[in-house]
């Protein structure tokens, strides 16, 4: 198992190199550069030439990329070109806010989704099943920013229940979590329902019932444990996606998260900051997916067997 994890982490390095190269080259090709966001009318040509030298913009993009990667290998993500603040510090102040939001929406989403998914699967075909399906489809098809705006108007403008932006109290978390969590819980419900539906026809449930196992225990112990794999995959993917900070939710609620930091970085053509954010998010993403795979092993002994058997090529059922 450890060997497998180490290999996956080693793969992180080439991935990060590719990701940073892609972002670096793309950002460089974008019209306008870092100094364009600093220029004001009073500057003359010489000022601009000096600025170009200052930010190595007169040299080729690969020179700058090389310098950036040298810094990276020494473990320093460099500092934002425009404000000089270290990228890691800016990320460090912003990331907890995104993490809080995504974890909260995910946890609440899952707590609602899994029982509902099971409920829908167990009553498949009845009115309740249709109701849940309609609910989840609405959740998936409602644009989260639109829902965010509507919540903003209802709960903050008409009935002054929740604050409109981030103000540190628990109240300001409610609306973004609902806006973000609604679609998350909808997709987890769907995944749970179809996972349980696949399991519900298996023979070993009949064996369990023949053993006299009560229905609730059949559901929790036998059905759910076999349905965890697709559910955990979905949750892992959801968490990985929100690590990037849902840019739209953070835009609507002026949430000081990583999503908005990236938008600002791109708007200001701050390549180092954008690259830094992407690298940190990508690392989190890969680590999270690795965690999901390791969780697979705990859930399903058949997968654990593949690792301990040390077979060279791993064949896990990709979702």
């Amino acid at each position, binding site marked *: 198992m450890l060997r497998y994890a180490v290999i996956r982490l080693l793969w992180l390095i080439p*991935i990060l190199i590719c990701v940073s190269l892609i972002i670096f080259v793309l950002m460089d090709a974008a019209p306008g550069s870092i100094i364009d966001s600093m220029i004001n009318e009073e500057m003359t040509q010489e000022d601009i030439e000096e600025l170009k030298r200052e930010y190595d913009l007169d040299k080729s993009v690969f020179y700058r990329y090389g310098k950036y990667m040298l810094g990276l290998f020494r473990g320093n993500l460099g500092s934002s070109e425009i404000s000089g603040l270290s990228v890691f510090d800016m990320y460090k102040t912003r990331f907890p806010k995104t993490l809080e939001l995504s974890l909260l929406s995910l946890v609440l989403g899952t707590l609602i989704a899994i029982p509902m998914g099971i409920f829908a699967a167990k009553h498949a075909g009845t009115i309740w099943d249709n109701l849940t*399906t309609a609910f989840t489809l609405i959740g998936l*098809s409602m*644009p989260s920013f639109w829902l965010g705006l509507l919540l903003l108007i209802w709960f903050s403008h008409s009935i002054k229940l929740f604050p409109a932006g981030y103000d540190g109290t628990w109240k300001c978390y409610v609306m973004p979590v609902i806006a973000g969590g609604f679609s998350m819980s909808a997709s987890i419900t769907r995944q749970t329902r179809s996972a349980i539906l696949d399991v519900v026809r298996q023979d070993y449930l009949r064996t369990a019932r023949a053993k006299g196992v009560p229905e609730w225990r059949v559901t929790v112990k036998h059905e759910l444990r076999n349905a965890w794999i697709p559910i955990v995959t979905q949750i892992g993917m959801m968490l990985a996606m929100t690590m990037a900070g849902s840019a739209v939710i953070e835009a609507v609620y002026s949430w000081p998260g990583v999503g908005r930091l990236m938008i600002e970085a791109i708007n200001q053509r701050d390549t180092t900051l954008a690259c830094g954010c992407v690298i940190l998010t990508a690392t989190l993403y890969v680590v999270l997916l690795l965690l999901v795979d390791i969780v697979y092993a705990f859930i399903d002994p058949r997968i654990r067997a593949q690792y301990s058997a040390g077979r060279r090529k791993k064949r896990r059922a990709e979702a």
Partner: protein
Amino acid sequence: MSRGQTETIVSRKEGHSATLASRKYKKKSAFLESWNRLRTNPGAMFGLIVIILMVLLMVYSFMFITEEDVMAINSANRFKPPSAAHPFGTDSMGRDLFMRTVYGTRYSLAVGFFSVAFGLVVGVFFGTLAGYFGGWVEEIIMRVSDVMASIPGMLLGMVIVAVLGPSFLNLLIAIGVSNISGFIRMSRASILSVKGSEFVEAARAIGMSEFRIAFSQVLPNSVSPLIVTATARIATSVLAAAGLSFIGFGVPVPLPEWGALISDGRNYLGRAPHLTLFPGIFIMLTTFACSLLGDGLRDALDPKLKQ
């Protein structure tokens, strides 16, 4: 031989030819059968009707609404609430929101369709190669797909639109690219599950080339998960396009894409909520319809799942 037995032998022979005929008959009906099952599924029908409605709206907008109607500024009637003259009211520049929303269907449908098609073609091609040939081919393709997956979709979209400049085509490419890795993973998984089956050995036994096997034998068998993923992706693509336009990385400003309409209306929410309400409902209806149709297709094409 006693009478009973000859009957049985004869009947068995006829039975055989009958089943042969029925099998041919059966082949045609496989499609018909899925269509029947789809037809009886109310959700899928609702989805199909809404999508057809949207396409009709698009055709209507191509024929009757000119660029001029949609862009004409009229400072007199700004922020008019929904009324008979303007079913959806008017926006901050006095333009009729109904015309703009209807005009906007072409963007969302096009984004939904083409970006998924783009992602599907590229994704499935590489996914099939990876799934079928395995070895270092698979390792490379999967790692590239990991790289693309690890860059958050929204950010990838932003950077691409920032690089190529805001235009409708670039928005398509941006979302298409973020769809690719999903299709690669999905098609690889379904190829892996199908690859082991006997008919692949049989095809190899009669000397078919590996390449032909991959694309003519193995791929058709993973068509149904493909269709289902495609419809689900249409829904997410329409949402992603709206999201990108909302944060200013979507279509160029004057074009009335739904996400952009919501973004225009968001500053006047307190004053004129109808500006964000109607485009939002249109987005929701389209994605809702796509998901319903996707579900319907999944149930129709995959009887095992049908309750």
